[in-house]
């Protein structure tokens, strides 16, 4: 890894990284990639998030779905762990709570393949600092 030597370097790197993220999230093609985030804080892992993440990675590959699965921190929904956030191309992220293997399978088959929602999604009820 190269060192970041100045503020200009840092800003340049940020805009490159941001455009990579934008490319991945707001892909123009309808077949754009699906972005999946698994909440992997202590409470998530204790409720089985690791197994769900592995299941998602394996199954998405087996079923030929082009998706990025990444881990993230605690989303704050301890009552509904494990939590999985799915962002379909050009759509708003949806958070699924209480994801077991069966639900993870439903997420792939029903939501990712058909855009069909599942019972028990968690409505976002917070504001981010970007909007303020």
């Amino acid at each position, binding site marked *: 890894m190269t060192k970041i030597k100045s503020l200009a370097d840092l800003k340049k790197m940020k805009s490159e990284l941001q455009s990579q993220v934008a490319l991945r999230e707001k892909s123009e093609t309808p077949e754009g990639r699906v972005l999946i985030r698994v909440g992997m804080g202590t409470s998530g892992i204790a409720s089985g998030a690791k197994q769900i993440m592995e299941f998602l990675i394996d199954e998405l590959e087996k079923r030929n779905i082009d998706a990025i699965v990444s881990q993230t921190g605690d989303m704050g929904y301890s009552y509904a762990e494990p939590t999985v*956030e799915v962002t379909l191309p050009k759509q708003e992220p949806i958070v699924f709570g209480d994801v077991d293997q069966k639900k993870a399978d439903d997420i792939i088959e029903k939501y990712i393949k058909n855009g069909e929602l599942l019972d028990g999604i968690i409505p976002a009820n917070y504001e981010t600092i970007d909007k303020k």
Partner: protein
Amino acid sequence: MAKYKMHMLVCGGTGCHASEGQMLFENLKKEVQDNNLENDVQVIATGCFGFCEKGPIVKVIPDNTFYVSVEPKDAKEIVAEHALKGRAVKRLLYFDPVRKEQIPDSKHMGFYKKQLRIALRNCGMIDPENINEYLAADGYEAMGKVLLEMTPEEAIKEVMDSGLRGRGGGGFPTGLKWQIASKNHADQKYVVCNADEGDPGAFMDRSILEGDPHTVLEAMVINGYAIGATKGLIYIRAEYPLAIHRLKIAIDQAREYGLLGTDILGSGFDFDVEIRYGAGAFVCGEETALIHSMEGERGEPTFKPPFPAQSGYLGKPTNVNNVETYANIPVIITKGAKWFSSIGTEKSKGTKVFALAGKINNVGLIEVPMGITLREVIFEIGGGIQGGKKFKAVQTGGPSGGCLTEKHLDTPIDFDNLLSVGSMMGSGGMIVMDEDDCMVAVAKFYLEFTVEESCGKCSPCRIGNKRLHEQLDIISKGNATEKDLDNLRNLSNVIKDTSLCGLGQTSPNPVLSTMDNFWDEYLAHVNEKRCPSGVCKDLIRYEVIAENCVGCTACARNCPVNCISGERKQLHVIDQALCIKCNACLEKCKFNAIAVI
């Protein structure tokens, strides 16, 4: 297969469920089917929207139309108008009492502004083990701005003007703390991140370190530059292995990018961070005890002054801040003190992260602007009390805080208001209790904790708390008199006034606040030898209700001490002398024939 064009989200939370939400859900499904729309419109039940007051809620996407107080009979109109004709049903839209107009979609509703994520901004949004994701989310930009464009004085002024106060419990103004440390001259100064989160039920610091470790590193560099320190230490308890693991990764990545180390971003400023492990003692959250523990001494507090800002780690000026405090710093620098101070109340600026726990539906972490009421937190964001039971009290501030009751529900939450009603902000744990919780038992629980965690250095805390716990035990066994209650109060006040550090000075708070707010319950234990909530084992007994008992023998078969006798299809009897009050019979009885008296 057809893809749905529209989704109708029906709230499946307990609040909405209680107001016919389930019937509404079924009616909507039926209407969709009757209109042959099942391939276009999907009706699903969701988790709680947190807007229970106006339930049941129906949200239609993709247009985000938000219907409130929807009755089962409205299903027909919603499907006919909205799904078929594409027109919103105006009469069911939310009417904003402030703006005096109907709000067509959820994005414009004030309700969704209840939570604002500043400290938690990246938690659950970025991969904590990938520095690139943090950089893409404006990471280390605040650090760059401070190191290259601001003087240390300007950085301190920015933090001071923001009005940020320490989030670890005490609420001391962060900017002032930095200023004091900056004015003390020494060859070496230290910046310490206090990650010794010890309040039972609070886990915001752990979540920040697990979800966004770089934000803490960034803030520590800023802190170091502001006070003239080149070394940072993170004091974290060894029982947070995942947080430690991610911190280590973050530190390595930041070093590789040159964001920690020498000549950071070409500014000429050097700073590096080390991790120090704590063994999980509550008292080590107190800054002087924490510093001693890092020095390899016993984790015991010492008298202040001298403050750590004068003589801290290895006798050098040291600035100690909590994890959540640090998580606010980069945002204050990038967005400005003015922006930050526009959020919150007059003396408490910004937001606070709370860990909701206990008998509440949506257990979890929330971040809300200061000044929000307990009612909004518990009943709207928290989704109310589990099982539809009655709210009794909420304990804020952990073992140092107090219990707040129904009459405090509309008090705006900030540092000063909580102190004035006999509790404190603490690190932000909120344990919600319902009608089944006994307040004497709650006070006893917290005292048990403080007795265990007292370091033993000063006698008021070491001996006083032990005696407090014994007194509470006597009360819960029904052996106390009213005189004992007076003693309890006196002893509490003495411990508060004479203890060396914050632990002892606040440990009687749970006793005092429960006595203030639930005096009747104490009196019932003392005078009537009765526990109104049926919790204190020595004051309750289990009885068989003769008219309900069918003689199924379930209780007798499950009793671990075989104290229930009775023939099949005959009335059963509990032998009180042998009963250990384990509650097994009550749980197994299907006929409501066992009662706690």
